[in-house]
């Protein structure tokens, strides 16, 4: 079969957003071509590679590295793909394969809280979104029904219809947190795209506790499920197609994209419409790479904001031993959290945050600690058992504000195909650090309520990154200040649309995937509205499901 060189819609990136957008358009009868820089991979081989890995805690280790589609890796050492310009390190991780980075997400599928889209008006920080939470509700619902999402009702995110399913059974450890922290804290089930029952032909979670790096049974929704749906609807996927230039015509419309195959043969693909869905780092990189004499700052960059306002969620944490056996590791990795600090008048002063409990098995971490401490023999066995049963961890998930100087630029370094690497300029401001300080009071109180001993706070001023790459293609109505309009369309090129976390104007406190998916569904609806009857029947089906 020869590779198509033209389609109604060309989608760059086969992650969850690009693939779901492609699926929707293909279902409407459009010809859709998805270009993916990385190769196809197989779940079972990733499972086997994970089990065989000597670095179980490194969630990138089971995934293949393709020289033509490099991805940032930091273990055993930084591979230097995401160049760090500082002042604060931004070690973002993503996977360049068919299906994208959700291959190893923990399936947290959060909605915003309504005030997240109005923090400029309400608290005089950040920016307001060009849309309201109410407008998003239906798109969230549609996204949740595609992904199969469950969660608690009291997380601060109102909804008009119920979740498609009940949460996965609460693990013992989370039950003990919930019981012992009440009434000071409400510990509730996370909103997750993980099956508590068979859903859409995928089985229920059986509690392997390896959501990251890989769900071995297809119980959590991944980008690859979206790719499968898109292909079933008629979309074509071209793997190993490394897009390196987007081409605009004389009128400013996008005419074509150019990609290299692994042998650096160049191919040109034309289309009527283009969707850029290559994540919050690779998407702006591509726009910047596509600079011409007419567009010296890159495409879609009249505002100069392409790549700017880079955001994520930094976390500090507390690890301790509870005074009872919790046995983390049964059930999914991220089952429960505290959501009462996601909004409030305090947002004028410091970052909002969520508090997230890990349920990752502690056996690996404790083993590494004991080896480092030189414990061996019978003491090792005894200590391993004692610590693995009691060790637990709580972390904050902090909001960061959009700052233009936090950005992705093109590095002077080049990758194997000669394409400039992305370069991260990042810092964590006082607003976010103040939020972290406040949350440390919660840490202390939680440890106290759990009878905690051996308290180990993450180092002061040191934050772990959560790989929720946000911003860089921000939505807004003013073409001089924002890259995309309220529907994700480029202000500068009428047939170029952006799908993904990049379009989010602020990062709020929740994992960004579900919001990006909801926005992507809204974008394709804007591009090609469904027939009214279809839309109504979808709405009615949703209502019936929820009835």
């Amino acid at each position, binding site marked *: 079969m020869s590779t198509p060189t033209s389609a109604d819609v060309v989608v760059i990136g086969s992650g969850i957003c690009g693939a779901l957008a492609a699926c929707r358009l293909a279902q409407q009868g459009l010809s859709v071509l998805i270009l993916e820089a990385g190769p196809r991979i197989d779940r079972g081989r990733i499972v086997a590679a994970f089990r065989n890995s000597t670095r179980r805690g490194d969630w990138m280790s089971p995934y293949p590295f393709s020289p033509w589609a490099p991805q940032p890796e930091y273990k055993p050492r930084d591979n230097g793909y995401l160049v760090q310009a500082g002042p604060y390190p931004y070690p973002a991780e993503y996977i360049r394969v068919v299906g994208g980075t959700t291959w190893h997400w923990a399936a947290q599928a959060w909605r915003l809280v309504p005030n997240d889209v109005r923090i400029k008006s309400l608290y005089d920080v950040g920016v307001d979104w060009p849309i309201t939470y109410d407008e998003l509700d239906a798109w969230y619902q549609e996204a949740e029904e595609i992904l199969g999402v469950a969660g608690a009702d009291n997380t601060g995110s109102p909804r008009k219809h119920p979740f498609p399913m009940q949460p996965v059974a609460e693990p013992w450890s989370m039950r003990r947190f919930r019981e012992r922290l009440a009434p000071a804290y409400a510990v509730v089930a996370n909103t997750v795209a993980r099956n508590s029952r068979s859903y859409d032909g995928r*089985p*229920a979670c059986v509690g392997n506790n390896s959501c990251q790096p890989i769900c071995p049974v297809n119980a959590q929704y991944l980008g690859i499920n979206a790719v499968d749906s898109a292909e079933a609807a008629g979309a074509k996927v071209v793997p190993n197609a490394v897009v390196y230039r987007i081409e605009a015509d004389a009128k400013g419309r996008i005419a074509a994209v150019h990609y290299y195959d692994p042998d650096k043969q160049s191919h040109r693909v034309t289309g009527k419409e283009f969707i850029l869905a290559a994540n919050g780092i690779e998407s702006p990189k591509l726009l910047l790479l596509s600079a011409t004499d007419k567009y010296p700052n890159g495409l879609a960059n009249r505002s100069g904001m392409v790549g700017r306002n880079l955001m994520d969620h930094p976390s500090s944490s507390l690890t301790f031993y509870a005074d009872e056996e919790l046995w983390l590791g049964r059930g999914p990795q991220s089952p429960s959290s505290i959501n009462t600090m996601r909004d409030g008048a305090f947002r004028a002063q410091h970052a909002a945050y969520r508090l997230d409990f890990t349920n990752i098995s502690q056996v690996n971490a404790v083993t590494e600690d004991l080896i480092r401490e030189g414990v061996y023999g019978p003491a090792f066995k005894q200590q391993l058992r004692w610590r693995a049963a009691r060790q637990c961890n709580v972390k904050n998930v902090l909001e960061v504000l959009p700052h233009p100087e936090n950005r992705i630029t093109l590095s002077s370094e080049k990758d194997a195909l000669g394409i400039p690497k992305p370069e991260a300029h990042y810092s964590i401001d006082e607003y976010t650090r103040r939020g972290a300080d406040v949350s440390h009071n919660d840490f202390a109180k939680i440890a106290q309520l759990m009878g905690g001993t051996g308290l180990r706070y993450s180092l002061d001023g040191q934050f772990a990154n959560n790989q929720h790459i946000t911003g860089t293609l921000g939505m807004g109505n003013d073409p001089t200040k924002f890259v995309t309009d309220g529907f994700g369309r480029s202000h500068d090129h009428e047939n170029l649309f952006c799908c993904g976390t990049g379009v989010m104007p602020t990062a709020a406190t929740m994992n960004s995937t579900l919001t990006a998916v909801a926005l992507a569904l809204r974008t394709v609806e804007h591009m090609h509205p469904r027939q009214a009857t279809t839309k109504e029947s979808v709405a009615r089906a949703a209502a019936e499901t929820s009835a």
Partner: protein
Amino acid sequence: MSRGPRAAGILLAALVALAATQAVAATGPAPASSSAEVQRGHYLAVAGDCEACHTAPGGKPLAGGLPIATPVGPIFSTNITPSKQDGIGDYSLQQFSDAVRKGVRGDGKHLYPAMPYTAYAQLTDADVRAMYAYFMHGVQPVDSRPTQTHLPFPFNIRLSMAAWNLLFLDDKPFKPDPGQSVEWNRGAYLARGLTHCSTCHTPRNFMMAEKPSHALAGASLGTWFAPNITPDPESGIGNWTQQDIVDYLKTGSAPGKGQAAGPMAEAVDHSLRHLSDADLSAIAVYLKSIPARHDSNDTRAADAWGKPYADFAGLRGKALPKDPDQMTGPQLYDAYCATCHQDRGQGSFDGGLPPLFHNTATGHRNTDNLVMVMLDGIAWRTDGSGVHMPGFAQELSDQQIATLGNYLTQHFGNPAAMVTVDQVRTLRAGGASANLVLLVRVLMAIVLVIVIAIIVAIVRMIARRRHRTTSQPAP
């Protein structure tokens, strides 16, 4: 997954291409009517599993349209709702009875034996009356005409079925055996009749009729294999307790023995799990009483093989082979099975995820079901439980399934049982096909030649006789 083999039944069952059709999205039993007879008829219709075949994927219950794939073309199930224009709304009790028990439809034409009327022939008059009441008053009429069946010559001559019926249809209703208990008689009535066990589990002769001498001794359906369920302790299920059988029919699982997959999972899901405990016990009593059928190749019960086993020591820290077909049994097990069936094949602590040893899935000499379950997985459509086991048809190659299958039988099951790449390829493609059309046309040609030969012979004989007569001098 199709309903095919179980229903395609008498003429074609062994040749049905199972995987070709879509799943049945049947709903549960229809709402009960007030009348006790209608309710009883509903129960009987569920026991007979009418809805499974007479409902198209995503279609209205009992409105027909499910294509049942056969080597001679698809047979489409009919609308059996009481719609007057498209269903059986105008049927008299006698017409209904003839359709169910004799395979003759309202207009007098013969049904194809995809409809298991040879089994339903056992039904008593009273039960047929109750089912008639249910179909007339307990079912919503649906005015829609499903696709009509058009089979190629000579199968389009429905009258040919009359001859077949003459040979193979015993149309006398069930007669209780006074020498047996009431429970046994109830079990025999159900198992031989409505639940039509023999449709799949009894092997067939060259005319595709069941061999009574081998009742329930096991038969291939082309893809899935319906095992021997006679009480032989090695070849059948003689080592199952009555409760094991009841559990299996009710839940699809007899812990430590085996679990239903393929068409049997569908039978449990759609039909058997809705039967009363008393009826399931009766079926079990009957099954334990039928003549045991032994195959000398079977030295041990299919669920009595294997033990916990793990072989990962050599794997850790080593890269997988680049070519997926070169993956070893332990590597494939580690990648695709261990997640649920655990490192030593022991399953989950509560049995929810079954062990692979002491499991008929790995213990039968015939490995077709092992291959089929790896390809298709197990899914229940109607009870809400959905996917019981994911299928790996998309992920695993023929070679990988053969390697893995042999690893499973070698360590967890019957070591003599083998899986070959050719077998996997054939099963993946829908099973061994037989060109029945060609076969029958050749047979008919031969018959025609013989008939012509006979006619010629007769004509010659007559001519000769006449010649003799005329040449003989008058007395």
